């Protein structure tokens, strides 16, 4: 096997089909970038989900004097109401713990969470956030038993399930994930057809050479390898371009998300790099595979 000869053939092939090669590289790059973004979002969601599964709580906000809720009847919850509620909750097997958070603590926690938005945090005063019972559940999906047990009870203003808020956030991310994977799929389809076309053109352009190669007894591998590698190289270059896009997606989408939404956990560079490598491999295999399949049609042995 003469490496130099094969490389030279590849170079000739790529140069002759320059416009096709460029469009192929772009298509592969976009396909792989979207594919990788979908995987990044999925990794982010999985990561956040497992992080939050252990921490999700249900907050039962207690009535204050002046609460607009009808059930409160404009009277604040008494310590006796609070005790009754705590007892009721403890009877539910799914409940791990019930903690009382008074207004001072609630304000402190709020200020800590919004530390990067001081104007908002400072405009909040004691009394704006009512005191609450924070309930931790063994299985967060069985939230309804808690709701039926305490809703309408004396002193209960609002029941907020953190899982519901997270669900909304995850739903948006899931939507993004599926959208990028779907577009990636369409782009991959386009890439496969582009490879097929490029290889067909390439095979046509080099029909003299391949005809002579056949006649003088070049092995099939020798004849086909330049074409397959041509596809693979276009795939690789596309994959490398997509790497830049993926790093952008990580910096400007995933990391921004983490800055803005406190539900998101940090997605490390380790998994980002894994996803990038995976995307490049998929891109190369996709191109090499489809050029191999096309060759069987257009290159007679």
């Amino acid at each position, binding site marked *: 096997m003469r490496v130099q*000869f094969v490389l030279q053939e590849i170079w000739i092939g790529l140069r002759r089909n320059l416009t096709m090669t460029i469009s192929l590289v772009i298509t592969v790059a976009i396909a792989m970038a979207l594919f990788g973004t979908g995987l990044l979002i999925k990794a982010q969601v999985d990561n956040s989900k497992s992080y939050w599964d252990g921490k999700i709580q249900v907050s039962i906000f207690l009535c204050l004097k002046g609460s607009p809720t009808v059930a409160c009847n404009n009277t604040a919850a008494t310590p006796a109401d609070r005790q009754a509620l705590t007892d009721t909750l403890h009877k539910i097997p799914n409940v791990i713990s019930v903690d009382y958070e008074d207004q001072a603590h609630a304000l402190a926690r709020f200020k800590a969470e919004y530390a990067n938005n001081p104007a908002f945090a400072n405009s909040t005063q004691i009394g704006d956030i009512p005191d609450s019972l924070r309930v931790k559940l063994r299985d967060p999906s069985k939230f309804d038993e808690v709701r039926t047990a305490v809703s309408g009870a004396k002193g209960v203003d609002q029941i907020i399930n953190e899982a519901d808020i997270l669900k909304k956030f995850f739903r948006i991310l899931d939507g993004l994930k599926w959208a990028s994977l779907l577009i990636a799929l369409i782009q991959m389809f386009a890439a496969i057809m582009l490879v097929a076309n490029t290889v067909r053109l390439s095979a046509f352009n080099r029909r003299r050479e391949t005809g002579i190669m056949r006649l*003088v*007894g070049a092995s099939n591998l020798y004849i086909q390898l330049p074409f397959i590698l041509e596809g693979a190289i276009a795939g690789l270059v596309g994959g490398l371009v997509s790497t830049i896009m993926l790093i952008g997606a990580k910096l400007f989408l995933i990391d921004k998300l983490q800055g803005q939404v406190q539900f998101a956990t940090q997605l490390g560079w380790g998994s980002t790099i894994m996803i990038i490598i995976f995307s490049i491999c998929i891109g190369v295999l996709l191109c090499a595979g489809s050029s191999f399949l096309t060759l069987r049609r257009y290159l007679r042995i």
Partner: protein
Amino acid sequence: MIHFDNVTKVYPNQNRPALQHVNVAVEKGEFLFLVGPSGSGKSTFLRLVLKEERPSQGHVHVAGKDLSRLTNWKIPHLRRRIGCVFQDFRLLPNKNVFENVAFALEVIGKPKRFIAKVVPEVIDLVGLEGKQHRMPDELSGGEQQRVAIARAFVNRPMILLADEPTGNIDPATSIGIMKVLDRINRTGTTVVMATHDAAIVDAFRKRVVELEDGRVVRDQSRGVYGQAY
């Protein structure tokens, strides 16, 4: 060397067979003219030897091997032992004489040093001394065919197949081409040449196999083109 055993070839979607019950044996070192009008089956004969086509019936043996038993991935090895020359030369226009001949060795993975030694020898053999660096469009038709012959012969095949090698060349130049083929034949290479160039066949007095409508109608040693002459 080449043995056709009751070979019939029918191309798909055609009623008339291209070859019918052909029995021909070509011995090692022989020079054979394959004559007959267009469409008589000369090219099909050559394509069967290369296993570019398969016989519909019968067997083709080349160098003692039954081609029907040759697996697809061994076909390249068969073709390395057979050189081919065509009417239209089939040179690569973007490569010079040396590169065109070297191409045949490069693609079967021969080392560079070997190519550098063997290619000039064969270029001299076909009578193109000093024209190694010419491009094909700077050569006459006869010279281009010499390059094609050099390329076919550079790997020292056992068999050289020539499909109307003088078809595009004037008679005077054709004699030169025939001398090259004769020289190659004298090295022990079996040569099968399909042609309808009567003057050449008559002048050379080699074995003649005449095909008509896919049948062998004449097989004569030291024959002429047509019996009418």
